């Protein structure tokens, strides 16, 4: 099934990594994937498949949760990065937006955004420009700029978290469920932003997303993860038209979209899980 291998220059590649939490819980059982330069790659899969874990393995945030990469390697621009600290990674342009928002509750929205630029040594003017750029993307944040993030609504926090990452001027963004809790309009907007950054500034994205429909519309390439293994991969287009994907991840049957009201209470086993 290895179809992508030789496409563009592999910016980020993960080779056969295995992750264990708490010394005993094996979560990733040999995951390999690659993000070519300037592309958007979607990482799909059910709850608990290991998407977040994969992203954290890349950005080296696992250790803080007592998880360990026990096998395999992670490379970025041809260099191994599995031993680098998150700070180093951000400096090299790799940044993660964590699942579940993680804003700094006691800081105001604006201070949150400013901390995002911590690794950049830039002038006040540039900082202001970056800030304006984020406000431009998320006007809602501007109206709440002086509120403590802890008191803002779920969606506002989500925007804040994404905006904060953008402040670092990244080259490679690992987005964990960016659409969660956002109004449909904003979801579209966020993906537009992704597209925009991707097109204009060549930023690459690896996004773990549950909103498969949108994700596959914007992504160039997709991986499907189940139970800690990659079970399917391919061009976004290809995946979008795959019958299994359609049925299980897009909720489309041959008869088109089914109303949520009418789904029956049964589950078909996914063939690839046995």
């Amino acid at each position: 099934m290895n179809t992508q291998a030789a496409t563009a220059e592999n910016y980020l590649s993960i080779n056969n990594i295995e992750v264990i939490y708490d010394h005993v819980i094996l979560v990733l059982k040999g995951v390999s994937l690659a993000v070519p330069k300037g592309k958007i790659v979607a990482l799909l899969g059910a709850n608990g498949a290991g998407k977040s874990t994969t992203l954290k393995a890349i950005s080296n945030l696992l250790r803080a949760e007592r998880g360990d990469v026990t096998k395999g390697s992670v490379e970025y621009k041809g260099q191994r990065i599995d031993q680098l600290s998150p700070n180093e990674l951000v400096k090299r342009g790799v940044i993660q937006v964590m699942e579940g928002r993680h804003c700094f509750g006691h800081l105001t929205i604006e201070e949150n955004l400013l901390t995002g630029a911590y690794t950049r040594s830039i002038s006040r003017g540039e900082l202001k420009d970056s800030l304006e750029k984020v406000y431009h993307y998320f006007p809602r944040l501007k109206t709440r700029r002086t509120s403590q993030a802890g008191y803002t609504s779920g969606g506002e926090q989500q925007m804040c978290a994404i905006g904060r990452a953008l402040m670092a001027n990244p080259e490679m963004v690992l987005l964990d469920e960016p659409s969660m809790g956002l109004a449909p309009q904003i979801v579209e907007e966020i993906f537009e932003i992704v597209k925009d950054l991707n097109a204009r500034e060549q930023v690459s994205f690896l996004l773990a997303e549950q909103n498969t429909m949108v994700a596959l519309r914007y992504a160039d390439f997709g991986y499907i993860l189940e139970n800690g293994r990659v079970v399917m991969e391919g061009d976004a287009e290809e995946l979008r038209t795959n019958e299994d994907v359609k049925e299980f991840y897009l909720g489309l049957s041959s008869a088109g979209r089914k109303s949520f009201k009418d789904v029956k209470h049964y589950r078909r086993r996914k063939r690839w899980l046995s």
Partner: protein
Amino acid sequence: MLYREAGQFKTSYAADQQLFPIRQDRIGLLLLLALAFVGVPMFASEYWFSAILIPFLIFSLAALGLNILTGYAGQLSLGTAAFMAVGAYAAYNFQLRVEGMPILVSFICAGLTAAGVGILFGLPSLRIKGFYLAVATLAAQFFIVWCLTKFPWLSNNSSSGVISAQNIEILGYAFDTPRDKYLLVLAIVVLLALAAKNMVRSTTGRAWMAVRDMDVAASVIGIRLMRTKLLAFAVSSFYCGVAGALYAYCYLGSVEPDGFSLDMSFRILFMVIIGGVGSILGSFLGAAFILLLPIFLDIALPFFAGLFGLPFSSATVSHIQILVFGALIMFFLIVEPHGLARLWQIAKEKLRLWPFPH
């Protein structure tokens, strides 16, 4: 695959809700109890009884009390020793002033008195959280000890505030040897530990843990924060109070208010944290660790120094002892921030898989 649960199916919820659903645990515990009640009294020396086992049990009980409050209900407290002091002085006064009160009843009353005081000092917890509360409980620590030294009535007008525990007699039998005292303490501790285990696995415990983990959510699902927190304070202080009474009656024999110092409160807190916050077993493991480690170092260090002919003076040895103690605390936290109990659990999980890595 030493520690295998496979094949142990539960056919009823009752069976699944047993104290120890896994057979190995059950057998292990029974063996342990048999050892504690029968084996130890036959073989242990007096030193073991009065210098190790009795204080171990008493501190375990106090740690258990604190663990209920801090580990289960999430209210950090630094005043444990003061509640023990309340227990000790209350027991003394009940014995002294109520003619013919059986000693066990005195212990219970001591616990209840401590519980009352605990509720009083628990009141602020309704508004104050986290480390703020911890520092506030220091008020209890200092205030209670001060009261005990200032109101001579409490120590039967002893000029120094020191009290000497009366002799223990239950149904005409005098508990005066270390072994007798050990058995008495053991019985009380086992009963109370069992009660604690029962509480934490039932609604009471779940309410505590809910408040600990997220009190807003807890209140939304119908838990009354005030009642739950105060109950935790009361039960915890009860345990500490009984521990304090035992400390006076079965361990030291005579106590002074200053003996229940902040230092002791901290020591008990160490036990809870090192043993495992929110674990009954952890309270025991922690007590053993914090109590035995210094003794071990005290014996081992001079021995090793002698072995290698190092010219350590006594002072240096003592200093190294403290230093190593601190280093080991940090070491264990780094290895497992959730304490020895968690380490034990992980070991069990590994054993379950053993000899296969996954």
